[in-house]
């Protein structure tokens, strides 16, 4: 499983698509400083952080969905899966290896961007302190622990997304279907709290059932917004972080388990 994961990461990292998205995300994160006129009233450092995390969220989701579908279907379509599964390898190892490889890719992506974002924020904060000594209140500077936590939350979100996309890929007949469905899952997971509110407000029994179904089948991506500030004082409690981490791991494990079951029956 680890060998397959390593090989998957290696294959993904050599693809120009990954390199392009990484470069684009770097550009957005680094170049946000020159976009401050579009800050909509937010403080500058917060605006820079939002740009960085926005790039991570949007481009990371595109990367995760495309990489998961592409790396899975390249094995099936190029028939490298035939050679691999003719070795003493469990199908579960193949599926989990693919998921771990994509998870590692997303981790590299998030880690690099989080590191860059921290550097950009530290650099700009130092500049602001030098130019406007009163602009940053004592103790009100950038909490790099908070930035790191934000990066971790982004990665957990991408992990869940990869597991759901892989689940779709194990029974889909085309890569395109997997990609489109992956994006639909992303939208549903982002908006499901709105749907829940609407159904609950409507008060009908069918609405409540629909609400319960959506909220149990799809994870709510809003729970990953626990690091929405740059202040150390806003750092969430360890219990909250653990709860969100377990929430993400639980959904990922459930989707990966279903993917294993689905792939066991797939004819290659």
């Amino acid at each position, binding site marked *: 499983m680890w*060998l397959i994961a390593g*090989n998957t990461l*290696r*294959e993904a990292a*050599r693809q120009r698509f990954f390199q392009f998205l990484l470069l684009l995300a770097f550009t957005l994160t680094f170049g946000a400083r020159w976009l401050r006129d579009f800050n909509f009233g937010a403080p500058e450092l917060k605006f820079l952080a939002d740009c960085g995390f926005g790039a991570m969220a949007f481009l990371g989701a595109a990367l995760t969905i495309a990489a998961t579908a592409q790396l899975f279907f390249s094995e099936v379509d*190029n*028939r*490298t899966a*035939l*050679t*691999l*599964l*003719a*070795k*003493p*390898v*469990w199908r579960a190892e193949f599926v989990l290896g693919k998921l771990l490889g994509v998870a590692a890719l997303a981790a590299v992506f998030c880690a690099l961007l989080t590191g860059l974002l921290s550097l950009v924020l530290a650099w700009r904060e130092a500049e602001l302190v030098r130019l406007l000594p009163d602009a940053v209140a004592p103790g009100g500077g950038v909490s790099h622990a908070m930035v790191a936590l934000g990066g971790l939350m982004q990665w957990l979100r991408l992990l869940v997304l990869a597991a759901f996309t892989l689940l779709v890929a194990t029974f889909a007949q085309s890569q395109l279907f997997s990609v489109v469905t992956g994006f639909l899952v992303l939208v549903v997971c982002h908006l499901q709290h709105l749907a829940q509110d609407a159904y609950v407000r409507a008060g009908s029994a069918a609405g409540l059932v629909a609400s319960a179904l959506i909220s149990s089948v799809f994870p709510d991506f809003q729970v990953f917004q626990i690091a929405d500030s740059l202040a150390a004082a806003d750092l969430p409690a360890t219990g909250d972080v653990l709860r969100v981490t377990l929430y993400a791991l639980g959904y990922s494990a459930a989707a990966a388990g279903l993917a294993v079951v689905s792939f066991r*029956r797939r*004819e*290659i």
Partner: protein
Amino acid sequence: MGAPGPDGAAGTPPAIEIRGLVKDFAVGLRGLRLRAVDHVSFAVRPGEIFGLLGPNGSGKSTTIKLLLGLLEPTAGGCAIFGVPSGKVEARRDVGYLPEAPNFYRFLSGRELVVFYGRMCGLAGAALRQRVEEVITLVGLAGSADRRVETYSKGMLQRIGLAQALVHDPRLLILDEPTAGVDPVGSAEMAELILALKARGKTVLITSHLLGQIEDLCDRVAILDRGRLVAEGNVSELAGAPGRLSFETDALPSEEIAALRAWLESRGRRLESVAPARRRLEDVFRAHVGRGARSTEEKR
């Protein structure tokens, strides 16, 4: 499927045992069934080269996939050295070269063989030694550090054979190992297969090159539309019982007439007289063998 079949020696299970194998595929939305393999049964003895023949769509590759546990049979079953095919353990002693193999293009030949060796549980010095052995055996020592994407078809087949051999399996399954390969590469592959047999390996091979199969195989099975239509020794199947052919130096026409008369005086008939011919493949190999190989290695 665990018990030894009739073809296995006492206490030794056959290398491959296939009994009543059936595979149906669902076609279209109405769930129509297409039968790709239809009650096929045969066994392959340890140490022999067995040819699985048949036209396109006859069920050869499906049979191989069923044998490797890549597909679930609709009915019947297969076993490898007595272990049912569905189990991962059955694949520990098998090396598989698929038809028109495709490998991770971003790896070098050596990295590829190392990867598959690790998948089979090899590690450390044993892995390194084994990788060098098989790369040398298949004749890719000079190209092992090139990326697989730069390999020719013949080289892909050879690196495919290397990955199949890396864990030193007792059984090799080669699906069209010479498809798309030039006659020289094809002949070299045949020599390799014979060398593997000499080392005690069992080989199941499918090929459209019947001449090559005839030279290589101890026994063959012929499939047609999923059914087993013939099985036996090559000499039994291809031979013409009760008939002989001679090859002599060139004879003048009067001596041929005398020979015919002599045979007729004994109640025999001289059926045909024709100039002896070499096979075109042998002519080709004699002319381009070494040149072709060195050119391919340099590319």
